[in-house]
């Protein structure tokens, strides 16, 4: 029986057969680990790892264990369904879009009409044919307060690097010139 829940496992009988490079990490990956071991008396702040991974650095609570701290912002939105949409046509009150089911990727794309009222005022400037948006349905305030079923539409905001934009414009100009000649 475990008297200290912080110990993950105590008794092992099986041999580990599939480990690869166990405890042989490269430079940055292990800095955090050494911080943890050296942190037995010091209180480490939850912070980023030295490498490109996330960290579970935290404060020590007993002789050799560091409580892990989740380093990712916690959400109160529990996703039920997610679609990625592409705007096909924009009308006065509605727009037509093709939806791709991201929750069940094998489903066929569907064409739907969505009320423009469902789009945040600030996102409406992005509403044009070809625009990409994400439509999610889920429970808000899942961990606190009453549960609410909500639907969110969020338009993609993607900045294209200047050089790529110039390349695309040049390619478009070349095509236009080509078609003008033929």
């Amino acid at each position, binding site marked *: 029986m475990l008297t200290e*829940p*912080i*110990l*993950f*496992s*105590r*008794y*092992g*009988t*099986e*041999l*580990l057969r599939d*480990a*690869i*490079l*166990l*405890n*042989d*990490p490269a430079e940055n*990956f*292990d800095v955090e*680990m050494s911080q*943890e071991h050296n942190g037995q008396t010091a209180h480490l702040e939850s912070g*980023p790892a030295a*490498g*490109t*991974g*996330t960290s*579970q650095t*935290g404060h020590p609570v007993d002789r050799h*264990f*560091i409580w*892990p*701290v*989740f*380093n*990712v*912002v*916690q*959400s109160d*939105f529990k*996703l039920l369904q*997610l679609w*990625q949409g592409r705007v096909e046509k924009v009308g006065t009150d509605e727009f037509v879009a093709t939806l791709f089911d991201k929750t069940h990727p094998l489903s066929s794309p569907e064409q739907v009409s969505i009320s423009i009222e469902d789009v*945040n005022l*600030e*996102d409406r400037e992005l509403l044009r044919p070809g625009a990409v948006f*994400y439509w999610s349905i*889920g429970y808000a305030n899942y961990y606190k307060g009453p549960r609410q079923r909500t639907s*969110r539409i*969020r338009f*993609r*905001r*993607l*900045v*294209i*690097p*200047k*050089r*790529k934009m110039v390349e695309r414009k040049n390619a478009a100009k070349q095509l236009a010139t080509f078609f003008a000649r033929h």
Partner: protein
Amino acid sequence: MKYEIEGVSIVLLGSFNPVIFQPAWFVLNKILPNYDVLEQEVNIVHNQITQFRLDWLKVDVTQDRFFASTSETANYTTLRDFVVSTFAILEHTPITKLGVNKDIHCRAENEETWNKIGDTLAPKDIWQKTLREPGLTSLKIQTLRDDDLPGRINVQLAPSAQVTPYGVFMGVNHHIELDELAKDDEQTSEQLAAILENNWDALLQSADKIIETTITKAI
């Protein structure tokens, strides 16, 4: 096993000017809409460090590290767009490494299953010869990549402090050596955009597969 908490983060190593990365700058450059920053929690904006948190996003930048994360499954792709857009504007930022990370916390059915995970992944028979009641507190595994990207995959497993009792934390780090990919006439930010746009789904699916297989086989 169902995840009780999950999140995705993007980490960049390079040379950054932390004071740039504040919510107003992202709105000004149309990377984030105004409605995202209405409820912002700015911890610090300084020459050496910037930390802020929005409803769905956490950003933490120092002079050599950029970190952005979300735990909203619906916004995983938005997180990618956020990073790509940021460095499309800051296109001359020298970036050397990229990390795409998936972290999860799940709960074992009972104490026995919880212990079995640790015992299977880190057997205690050798440790018990010299140690009294050895327990697993953190396990890190590194492996080669199975795609064409230069770098490695780092996997970490530990008891979870967020999910108790019997919680398990597992994190997968897709570490990519961005500087090895950049051609002479190309900014690393272009490589970053290309990798994130072309490999995003595959990187997350790979992380999910590693996590699911490891935990399922260890139970």
